[in-house]
Structure formats: C-alpha cells, structure tokens
C-alpha cells in the first residue's frame, strides 16, 4: 500500500471540505493511505511572500520538517500549498545560507529540516504514481458522455519545474479519460482564475472568472474539473457576482477532479461532499453509468 504524508491546507478544513472528503475516499479505493501531517500550519498562500520572504520560507519549512520525520512524500491537494512547499524545498536545497536561517528558527519548535522531502500535488499522485490502468480497474460507473473541462490553473505546473510542459500538459485529460469522461478542448485550461485577486482586485478577478466560464461553455463542457480549492471557490461561488457584473447568466457546475473520480468509482455522492456546491451539478452526472442516456 502506498502511503503519503498529507497536507490538507486550511481551505480543506471547511471551505473545500468536499475536496478533502473525496480525496480521502478515492485514494482509499486505490489502496493509498493519506496520513495527515501532525500539527501542520498554514502554508501562507501567496500572502506571506508579500510581507517577508524569510517568514514565508520558515512557515513552509516547518511543515516540511514535520513531514521529513515521517519519511514519506508529502501530498498537497491545494495548488498554492503545493507550489509554496515545492519551491521552498527547492530554495532551501540550493541556498545553504537560507536553510541555516530557517533551521535556526525551527529549533524553537524542536524541528530541523534536512532537505529530504519530495512534494507532490494530489493530482500528480493520480497522474504519475497511479497508472491509468489502476484507475480504470476501479471504475464501476464510467462517466460516459460527460464532457469535462480539465482546468489546470496556474500553480500545478507553473513556475516550471525542470523540463515539464507548462503550456499544453495532458495528464489531467488522461485521468478524465481513464474514468470514462470526455475531456474537452478547453483553450483556457492553463489561464489563471484570479483566485488571489478576488479580495484585493475584485473586478479583475471576476473578469478572469468570466473568461474561464465562457470558454467552458464554448467548449460544450458540462462540468469544470479543478484540482485546487482556490480555483473551485473562485469559479463556482462567484458566478452570481460575475453575472451581476457582466450581465451574463452563468450557472456552471465546478467539481473537484476527485469528486468525478469518486462518482466513477461508485462512491455515494454524499461521501464525496457532493451537495455542498452553490451550483448544483447536472443530474446526468449523478446518473452517469447507471443508465446510459
């Protein structure tokens, strides 16, 4: 059985609790154990870095140090948490001076980070560590005929890590195909949702949400799949505001990719947190696989 240290991040405690639930359910089905990091702290989203770099690195390093003790790879379901942890680890590895400063602070919490943690995004677990065959083998209710817009967003692939494809990756599509859904050509799949701007620069963020929703409509998708709580909340919960702002009429379901996988695995919707969304999902989705209409 594969085991990971699991860093849920603040959003998954409440705001994105359905992501949390569906992540646990689907991984369990695949024989993967997500072991929550003990006493983790907030990764800081983008905001720490606005204030103080060293503080930001230290707070991330605290989580890394806790994870290092487990000897497991860390999995973060939130793209922002993932990006912060990944690049903090990378920086600490490269900059011994920085690592020394950070470890000096960590001493106060009886921690020490030695640079030996691998950080993965939850979707990478599904895309890399689990084969498409394994996923397929667990599908009991394939999402046939369901057109899904795979929304990558920003911080899973950006900034670039080594030589990965940052413009046209295909792994999300691969997962969706594995559960029987039809990934649509979603031209804006790599564009930003404006999550970090929704408070501070509202109009800009709403316009970004509008563009993404419009593109999903244009590509004739029935649902947008996300892999980040920020993206999900932004794309889903702000649709009314978008409609008010731009005179549009969006009512477009946005689910976590794990929720879609869960449905295909035949896990009861409730266990996947379905029902907590602002925009109800199409009944066809819930029916998928049961009756092929």
């Amino acid at each position, binding site marked *: 059985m594969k085991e990971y240290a699991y860093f849920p991040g603040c959003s998954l405690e409440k705001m994105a609790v359905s992501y949390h639930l569906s992540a646990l359910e689907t991984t369990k089905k695949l024989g993967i154990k997500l072991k929550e990091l003990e006493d983790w702290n907030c990764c800081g989203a983008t905001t720490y870095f606005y204030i103080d770099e060293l503080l930001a690195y230290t707070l991330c390093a605290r989580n890394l140090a806790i994870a290092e003790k487990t000897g497991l790879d860390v999995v973060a379901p939130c793209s922002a948490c993932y990006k912060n942890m990944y690049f903090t680890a990378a920086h600490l590895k490269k900059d011994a001076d920085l690592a020394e400063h950070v470890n000096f602070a960590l001493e106060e919490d009886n921690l020490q980070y030695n640079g030996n943690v691998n950080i993965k995004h939850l979707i990478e677990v599904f895309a890399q560590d689990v084969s498409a065959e394994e996923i397929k083998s667990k599908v009991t209710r394939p999402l046939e005929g369901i057109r899904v817009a795979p929304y990558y967003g920003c911080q899973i692939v950006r900034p670039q890590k080594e030589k990965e494809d940052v*413009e*046209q990756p295909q792994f999300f599509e691969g997962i969706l195909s594995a559960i029987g859904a039809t990934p649509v050509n979603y031209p804006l799949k790599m564009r930003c949702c404006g999550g970090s701007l929704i408070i501070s620069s509202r109009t800009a963020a709403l316009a970004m949400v509008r563009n993404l929703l419009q593109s999903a409509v244009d590509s004739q998708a029935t649902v947008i799949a996300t892999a980040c709580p920020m993206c999900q909340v932004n794309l889903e919960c702000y649709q009314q505001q978008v409609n008010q702002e731009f005179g549009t009429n969006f009512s477009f379901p946005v689910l976590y990719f794990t929720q879609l996988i869960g449905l295909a695995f035949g896990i009861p919707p409730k266990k996947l947190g379905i029902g907590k969304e602002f925009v109800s999902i199409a009944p066809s989705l819930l029916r998928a696989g049961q009756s092929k209409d």
Partner: protein
Amino acid sequence: MEKKEKIGVYVCHCGTNIAGVVNVGEVSTWAAENLKDQGVVVSRDYKFMCSSLGQELIQKDIKEYGLTRVVVAACSPHLHEATFRNACKGADLNPYLCELVSIREQASWVHTDKVAATEKSKALISGGVSRVVYNEPLEPLYVPIHPATLVVGGGISGIQAALEIADAGYRVYLVEREPSIGGHMAQFDKTFPTLDCSACILTPRMVQVGSHPNITLLTYSEIEKVEGYVGNFTVSIRKRARSVDEATCTGCGICWEKCPKKVVDNVFEAGMGNRKAIYVPFPQAVPKYPVIDRENCTFYIKGTCKACEKFCPTEAINFAQEDEIINVEVGNVILATGYDPFDARRITQYGYGRLANVFTSLEFERLSNAAGPTGGNIVLRDGKTVPKVVGIVHCVGSRDKNYNEYCSAICCMQSLKFAHLVHERTGAEIYNFYIDIRAPGKGYEEFYHRLLDEGTHFVRGKVAEISDAVRLPGEEGKLIIQVEDTLTGNQLRVPVDMAILSAGLEPRRDAKAVAKQFGISCSADGWLIERHPKLDPVATVTEGIYIAGCVQGPKDIPASVAQGAAAAARILGKIMQKEIALEPIRASIKEEQCSGCRICNNVCPFNAILFHEDKMVSEVNPALCQGCGTCVAACPAGAISGTGFSNQQILSQIEGLMLLNIKSHKETVPA
C-alpha cells in the same frame, strides 16, 4: 650534463618601457655572475633588442662565443619570438634554441615596485636559462597538399565553393545527403529584398555543378569516415542505393508518373505536398535521376508492384542495388551542411500542429511558390479560402533563452518578404509582430520602408500566444494573436485568419557528430566554431577543415555565398603552395615504453592518436597532432614526450624560477 651549453642572455630596455621600472643593468650583471654554472657565458643589456642592431649583437655573439643557446628577456613572445628566432637562424643557430622571457608584459608594465620587478625579472631569466638548456633543435614539418577537395553539403554555399575550386582547375567531390543538390534555397519562392525568383538564380548554378568536368557529384550520400590530416585526408563516402542505375537513366520521368504510391513529402514540400515513392524532389533537381524511397515503395514493403521497372524505357530500375562505399583522397575539406529550421511545435502556445491555420515559414515558402502544391495561391489549410487577415510572428524560437538565445538573422527579412507576397497576392490585411526589425543588409532597410508604405501593420511586441478561445465579438472562427503593443502599452487581441511563424535557424541535428568526425568543435549553441570570429571566419582549428554558410551560424544567401567563395579561396591558396609547413611542436610516443593501455586514445580531440592492435601500442600521427601536449601529461607510463614543452624543460624551468639553480640563494626561500 656531459656537454656544457654556452648561453647568451640579452636584456632589452625597450626604451624606458622596461628600463623605466626594471634595473636592466643590474639584471644583466646578475645573470652573468649567478647563472655561470648554468652555462651563461655572456649577458648584455641593450636599448632595443628587436632593432637590427640588437639582432646583429646576438648574431655576433653566436659566432664569437660559439653560443649554443640564446635567452632574450624582452617583450611577450607573441610579439617578437619570431624576430629573435629568425635572428638566430641567420647566425646558423636552430631557431628553437632561442627562448624569450617576457619582462615587459609580465614585469615592468604590471608592477610599480622597482625592486620587486627587478627581482622578478631575475627569476624569470633564471627560469628561461634553466629551460633553454633542454631546448632541442627542431625543424618544421612539411606535408604535401593533395589538390582535390571535399565539399560536404550541396546547398548554395557548398555549390559556390565547389564551382570556385573546380573552375580553378582542381577536382572537387561534392557530397549531398538528399537526392538533389540545391539545399533550402531550392525550396524558396522569392529572395529578399530583390524578390528575385529563387529557382531562376539557383538552377543555372546547379546545372553547372552537375555538368562540371572537375566536379564529382555524390548525392544521396553521406560521409562514413574521415582519416588523415591536412593535405592528406582519406574520406569514405557511403553512396546510398538509389535503386536506379545512373548510367542508363535519362531522367525522363515516366517512372514517377507511373508509380502508384503517393507519399507526403516532409522534406522538400515541408509536408504541404506529395511525391511518389520513386521521385526527384523537384523538377529542376540535379542530378536528374530519381531515387526509390525504400521505406514507402510497395515493392520493398510487399514484394510486388514494380510499376516503375515495367515502364522504364531504359531498364534503369535496379531493385537489388546496394549502398556503395567510395574512398577519396583529398587535401582539404569544406563543411557546408547548413541548418535545420526551428521546430515550431516546441512553442506550444503558438499552436502550430494544433491550430490548423498556423503555418511555419517553410510551409509558407512552399505555399507561395508557383511550383508548390497550391501553385502559388496563398490559401488556408482547407486549400481554398483566401485569408483576409494574416499575422506574421517574428523571432519564433530565436532571441528566447527557453529555445535559442541567438538572433537567427534572416527572419525579419523573411517576414517582410512574406508580408509583401501576401499583400501582392491576396490584398489581405497584414500584421507583423516583431521585437526589433533587423535589416542590416544592402537594400534591406529600403525593403522595410517599402512594406511600411504598403500599409502592413507593424506591432512591436513578442507574441504571447495564439489561440482559438473566442472572447469578444468578431473573434469567432479566427485565430486570436495575443500580444502587448509595447509602443502603446496596450494588450491586444488580434483576430487573424492565418498566422505565419517566422521560425529561426538551428544547427543540424547531427552537427555535433559531423564536427567530431572532422575533429572540430561546436559552440554551446551547436554551430561549428570558426578559427577566429572576426579574422578567420571560414577556417577552423583543424588545419585543412573549412566551414561555409549556415553551418557556422545563421546567415542569409549573400553571406553564405561569400563564405563558400572565401573557403574556396583559402583552399586554392593552400593547393598553390603544394606543401604546408607545420609547427614542430608535436607529441610522440616511445614505442618500447608504451604498454598500449589506451588512456591517451580519446584524450586527443583531433584523432591524432592511433592504436595498433597488432603491436598493442599507440602512435601519434605528427601531421594531425596540434601540439597541445595533453596526451603527454596524460600518459601514465611517461611514454609520450612533447617537443618544445618537454618535461625536462618545464621541470628545469620551475627550478630556475625558484632560483634553486643558484647555490647562494637564500633570500627567496625563507629558512
């Protein structure tokens, strides 16, 4: 030491250049007194040693004192080593028995402390004296130059080089990988800025090559192996089987007319058109003989068909033909292997390969070519729609550290040419997206002005992305080019029907392998390196190997032609000399001490070290050896020695520099 050398030491004042800081009189007296045991019999200082009087002074001493070694303490050997060596030669002393010590560049000009500079000069002279004792008389190495030349690559640069040499009356072997010569130039429609028809100016040259009595043309062929050295290369060429007998084929064309197998032509037509399984790449091909593409020919796949054979009036089809290895002897080589276009697929945000109406520059060349698949009609991928708005994207794959950092030099002008052709043939609205317009050639800037006058839009900004994601009215069904107009600071979304990616130039995929084969090197970018970027642009560090055209770096047609001609001129000069003198700084292996461990074998980048399997010893080919001495240092058995820089010379020089050769020295090595 059995026979004691007689050494003369000459300290130059260089006016006040040296004497102003170094106490030259003291240095000279010091050398006479303290280096006596080393063999110094005379030590002098003089105002200008390099003057004719200074040189005569040395010559006189050589005769009077019977000097066997000379040490001149003056300027850098890079300035006057030849002067003083010649002076010695004039007095019948082997020039290599003269040693220069630089006390100007290394002492008087760089130090202010007069005492320290004087003391350092003494040490340097002491080192020179200790070294010169072990200098050996050397003679330059003369090798004859074979008058034939190998030209690799039959593009415009190689064609030019081949014709120059052949016209001068010498044999040329022109080797081309494709079935025809002509290179990229044969694919183009027009050439900038004159808009000459590319084929019209190129074809006569190709015909000349094909019929020249001094040119042996080997197309559909590749270099297999290169051995030898300047003046005496032996080159093995693999002439791939054409499956067509050149002696009987008349190039009538019936075979490719009758061939039932259509193949997408990814080479000459850049995937825009088709050819047959037996084909000539284009009608004006030289030579005129077709080749059978065995990967696609039905006969080679299924064993039946033979349509070509049936219809051939001269029975020239030969399915059983095999590759042939041809060995030629040549004195010099020109590498003119050209470039590959940048693969625009790599920039995924530009959508090439994903969005139908995104074209590459090479595709557009074929599209606009009257002999091309659309007969010169500029249309969208559907084969009929004439675009109303066309966007031309500059710097695709160039000036970008994610791909190639360099400027590909030709794309600006190529883009202007495209804009002009689109304007002329379709009247479409045209946008050029550029970072900077680079138009530095004759008539180039004027061409740019002409385009401005034609009403082409110029948007200064590197294109961020091309997509089909519609957002605004008027964008439906269009490609949207997103870019900042950096002159206004506005982000634009320009809807176009057709986008042309002006792809940059890249080194050939196998440039590194070719370079290694010929013992030269590539820059970090992958272009072959010239001997000197300014003053020796077509020679390389390996004697006898020259480069011309885009293999050296991106350049346009006139520059490629100029380099082809320049390389030819350099080689003709060598051929006229009949033989070449090589510096006698060489490595050699003492056979009895060599155990054949083979450590040295691939230490040499010039392939100068051969291993004799039979005797289990390695040997240095003196004509290939460039004298770097790396193998001398690498030999674990101490079996390799290097002339001019022998172990004895250098170890002795170290002792000299540390003044260990002087019994009374105390002050330099503290107790």
